[in-house]
């Protein structure tokens, strides 16, 4: 509402052609996408989820919202009506499509859409946004590339192979419990185009010939799908369940998992750990150490009852570089319903006390359930343990893209001490952090030095 289209003059300095008339050939839906959507979002907690293009507080009628939800998994195939002269000019590269399952989690993706649809195409047409494939369940994909209302239907392309069409935007914005999740919902392109081919051949003979013009899939044939599980270091992330509480964790030794105190708070508690490696469905462990409530470091350490073999042990970093590309891996938002999500960003701040890093901030999207998960550099080095995102207590708003991690350099000597000698004293030191460190984690200003009297 309020966004009226205007007559464009040029598009980034080049003349913009007027809109062409088109014919709606068919409306398409991917049944597998609908099934996965219902499984992931249609549970008893479904009322927590919203996919409206408008903010939760905006005035969108229930009918409108219901229509949007019904149409979420539907796409449309159009035929543009060009005159023969135009058709002769309009030839371009053939688009290629990435087969379903060939793009791994964490792979870079480029979303291209027009925010606000037809509003000001000379300014907004084909705005691009970068991110990664955050999660996937069947043809339902999620990316952390930022998309805006109006980009529904926009293409999402891979960097490798370059420019292969991976998916189309199904819902640019997701809200859970009135909080913006910061992920965009996608429908994989390959099954949609397969449905289009089938539909065209069944509709009418004249339309059948169009099926052969739909873009082909690149890479592995259907029978030999490459199921790339993603970057190997992501396998170190585990789901941690302690009673009714769950969160994420990271395997730092074959029998040792680090998570957050608020996930596994009590020493000696039994904890269920679910690795992502299919070999292990679940494994029991117990909390050998959890920092005290007064400690700024929200950390718990879990000892497993048996060794986790085949799970990559991440290499802890020794240095942090502000601005470097980083990824968070965690079970936030979906928990056990889906594998861990990967979100990308940069290391936006390294907060130091006495020249020692005590807090890391990133621009990755971090959601409830990601606590305890690992923060990795782009080369897979373990940088830290995610502790929280940000909430404004005055407005109740949560900011997933401002989050805090405990640097691994704070924990590594103590973890090593425990691994080598079973000695908990190093971990217990975390309960005696200095006041300046506590001040940082309470998000307070550093204490001003008391002015000294000159008398």
């Amino acid at each position, binding site marked *: 509402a309020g966004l009226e289209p205007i007559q464009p003059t040029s598009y980034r300095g080049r003349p913009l052609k007027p809109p062409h008339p088109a014919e709606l050939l068919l409306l398409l839906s991917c049944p597998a996408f609908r099934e996965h959507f219902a499984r992931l979002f249609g549970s008893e907690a479904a009322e927590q989820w919203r996919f409206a293009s408008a903010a939760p507080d905006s005035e969108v009628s229930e009918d409108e919202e219901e229509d949007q939800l019904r149409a979420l998994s539907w796409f449309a195939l159009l035929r*543009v009506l060009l005159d023969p002269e135009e058709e002769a*000019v309009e030839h371009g590269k053939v688009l290629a499509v990435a087969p379903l399952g060939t793009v791994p989690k964490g792979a870079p993706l480029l979303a291209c859409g027009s925010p606000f649809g037809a509003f000001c195409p000379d300014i907004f047409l*084909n705005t691009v946004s970068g991110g990664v494939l955050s999660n996937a369940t069947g043809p339902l994909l999620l990316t952390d590339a930022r998309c805006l209302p*109006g980009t529904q239907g926009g293409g999402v392309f891979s960097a490798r192979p370059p*420019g292969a*069409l991976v998916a189309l935007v199904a819902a640019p914005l997701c809200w859970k419990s009135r909080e913006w999740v910061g992920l965009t919902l996608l429908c994989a392109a390959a099954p949609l185009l397969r449905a289009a081919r089938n539909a065209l051949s069944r509709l009418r003979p004249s339309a059948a010939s169009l099926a052969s013009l739909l873009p082909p899939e690149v890479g592995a044939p259907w029978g030999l799908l490459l199921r790339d599980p993603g970057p190997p270091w992501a396998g170190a992330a585990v789901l941690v369940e302690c009673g009714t509480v769950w969160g994420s964790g990271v395997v730092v030794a074959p029998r040792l998992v680090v998570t957050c105190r608020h996930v596994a708070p009590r020493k000696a508690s039994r904890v269920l750990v679910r690795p992502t490696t299919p070999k292990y469905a679940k494994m029991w462990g117990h909390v050998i150490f959890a920092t005290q409530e007064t400690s700024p470091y929200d950390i718990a350490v879990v000892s497993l009852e048996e060794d986790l073999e085949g799970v990559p042990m991440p290499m802890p970093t020794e240095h942090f570089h502000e601005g470097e590309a980083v990824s968070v891996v965690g079970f936030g938002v979906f928990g056990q319903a889906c594998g861990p999500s990967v979100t990308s960003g940069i290391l936006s701040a390294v907060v130091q006390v006495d020249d020692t890093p005590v807090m890391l901030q990133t621009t990755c999207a971090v959601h409830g359930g990601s606590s305890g998960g690992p923060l990795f550099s782009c080369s897979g080095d373990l940088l830290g343990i995610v502790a929280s995102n940000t909430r404004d207590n005055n407005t109740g708003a949560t900011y997933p893209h401002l989050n805090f991690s405990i640097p691994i350099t704070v924990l590594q000597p103590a973890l090593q001490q425990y691994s080598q000698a079973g000695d908990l004293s190093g971990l217990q030191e975390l309960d005696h952090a200095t006041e300046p460190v506590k001040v940082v984690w309470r998000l307070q200003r550093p204490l001003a030095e008391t002015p000294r009297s000159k008398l």
Partner: protein
Amino acid sequence: MRRQWGPAMRVAEQAGCVVRASRAGQPEAGSWSCSGVILSRSPGLVLCHGDIFTPFMRAGSGVLTAAAAAFLPGDSCSDDLRVHVQWGPTASSPAGRAEWGRPGLCTPQC
């Protein structure tokens, strides 16, 4: 950014388009629009989101949830549906050719 995305950005910008749906002769009734992907240029085939067509469904939007089918024919929408697609200048179009030429090359006036 450009280095990582260069080839993908070129493809994305050539494939991206915007789609607008409106009622014939009823501009006051407003229009609905979304983004789309050009699958083929000759003939022009475009894939876009289906949300913008729900106001035009003859049987109402309920048909989208009722239908177990994977597709609905185009005539599921009313006859007064008018669809328009707009895209940017392409490498193949005269307007785009100069832009996508090699850096440093130009077409000097004679």
